[in-house]
């Protein structure tokens, strides 16, 4: 599997409702050791939402403050963002990802502050 097999794919809950597309994939560095890198990166969950515009600009992080006009705009654009824990992912298909949790119960994504 590649990262691009997840990015941009529509996320659907058991009632067939869409939570939008995968905007990003959250990783945690706590997997088995690999070479000089240390613990490997493990997929922890999916950041999903309706509009993908500006997902890559990094305005989800609180420490990126300005310019406020731009920050405001992209905050508003990503207001319906949700986070799906990886253990809630049931199947990954080429055109959609099925999750076991109703989209109403999903939390807001808390983007890691430091990379």
């Amino acid at each position, binding site marked *: 599997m590649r990262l691009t097999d997840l990015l941009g794919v529509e996320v659907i809950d058991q009632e067939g409702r869409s939570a939008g597309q995968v905007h990003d994939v959250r990783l945690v560095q706590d997997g088995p050791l690999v070479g000089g890198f240390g613990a490997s990166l493990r997929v922890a969950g999916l950041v999903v939402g309706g509009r993908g515009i500006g997902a890559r600009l*990094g305005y989800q992080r609180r420490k990126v*403050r*300005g*310019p406020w006009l*731009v920050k405001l705009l992209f905050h508003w654009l990503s207001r319906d963002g949700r986070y799906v824990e990886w253990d809630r992912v049931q199947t990954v298909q080429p055109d959609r990802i099925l999750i076991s949790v109703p989209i109403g119960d999903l939390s807001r994504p808390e983007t890691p502050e430091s990379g």
Partner: protein
Amino acid sequence: MKRLFAIALGILTAIGGFVDIGDIVANAETGARFGMSLAWVVVVGVIGICLFAEMAGRVATVSGRAVFDLVRERLGARVALVNLAASFFITFLTLAAEIGGVALAIELATSVNYLLWVPIVAFLVWLVVWRVKFDVMENVFGLAGLALVVAAVALWRLGPDWGGLLHGATHPAVPQGEGHPTWWFFAIALLGAAMTPYEVFFFSSGAVEEGWSRADLITNRLNVYIGFPLGGLLSLTLMAGATLFLEPRGIQPGHLSQVALPTLLVLGKLGLAMLLIGFFAATFGAALETGLSCGYAVAQYFGFQWGKFVRPADAPRFHLILLVSIAAGAGLVLTTIDPITITEYSIVLSAAALPLTYFPILVVANDPDYMGDKVNSWFTNALGSLYLVLLLVVAAATIPLMILTKAGS
């Protein structure tokens, strides 16, 4: 002392490096047609390029990442590719215009048709980017470009009605017999000439080429804040010369030779010789910068090794792009399309394309992951947001105005 020398050198080369074929053509044409009524655009453009170049230089210095590297990081592979295609095309057009400009300057000195000079000029441009050390290249052509100061000397010697010029510049109004769309179209051309995207590609990549560190941030600021405004002043003297000599006679400059008329009528042969040297150095220097910028943009998008700080054999794809771009640029001029026409299109499209690179830089300059404590100040952000809106309006207005005015004709 050595540091002071380095700063002075940086400022001087920034002045000489600011003016290129686009500034020469845009300022002379505007002065001849609209007098000083569009001088304010040069001021707006200079402030804009200072803002943009300072941010890009600071980002490159602190994070080691040049403009197109960041464009791709912030916009993703797909959007950044569209961005690359547009930016590369415009930079390439500018490269062709500069090669043509060098050939035209030599034609004026030799009376031998410029088309015969084009292959030779292209070869020399390639030879310099292939062989000559980065800082030598930058300093030699930047300093030689200062010969253009002769246009300012001529203006001074002439002792024109300064009050009248200033009045024209501070009371912008569309001259009689000219339409508003045309006036605004020329305003966009002037803005694009002052704020050309390649200047920023080159400036930020140059910071990496020269291995700038945080200690050089002050040099970055001084180069930009002193050098560029003085460069802008130099292009305004070309506008003033056209206002005084060409506008009253109804001369519409379509050739480089006409731009030189005001200077030689005041200063004679020596003035003419200096001006031609200035034209040559400014356009040749800009041909080097645009050629390198073609390579920088593509290599940075794909992550190829780029730069003149390594052996050519260690940056093979970068040097291949340079070689092909320069050859193709010469090819475009050899189709006998008037280099002045290429210049006119390149500066107008430059203005339209500015948000593509300006926006990602504005965003990254606010990101502490890259910048640490060197993120934008509130003042820079306030001004930066103002310019973002301005550049978006310009980008949206350019193509409709171009069609409406038949490209200002």
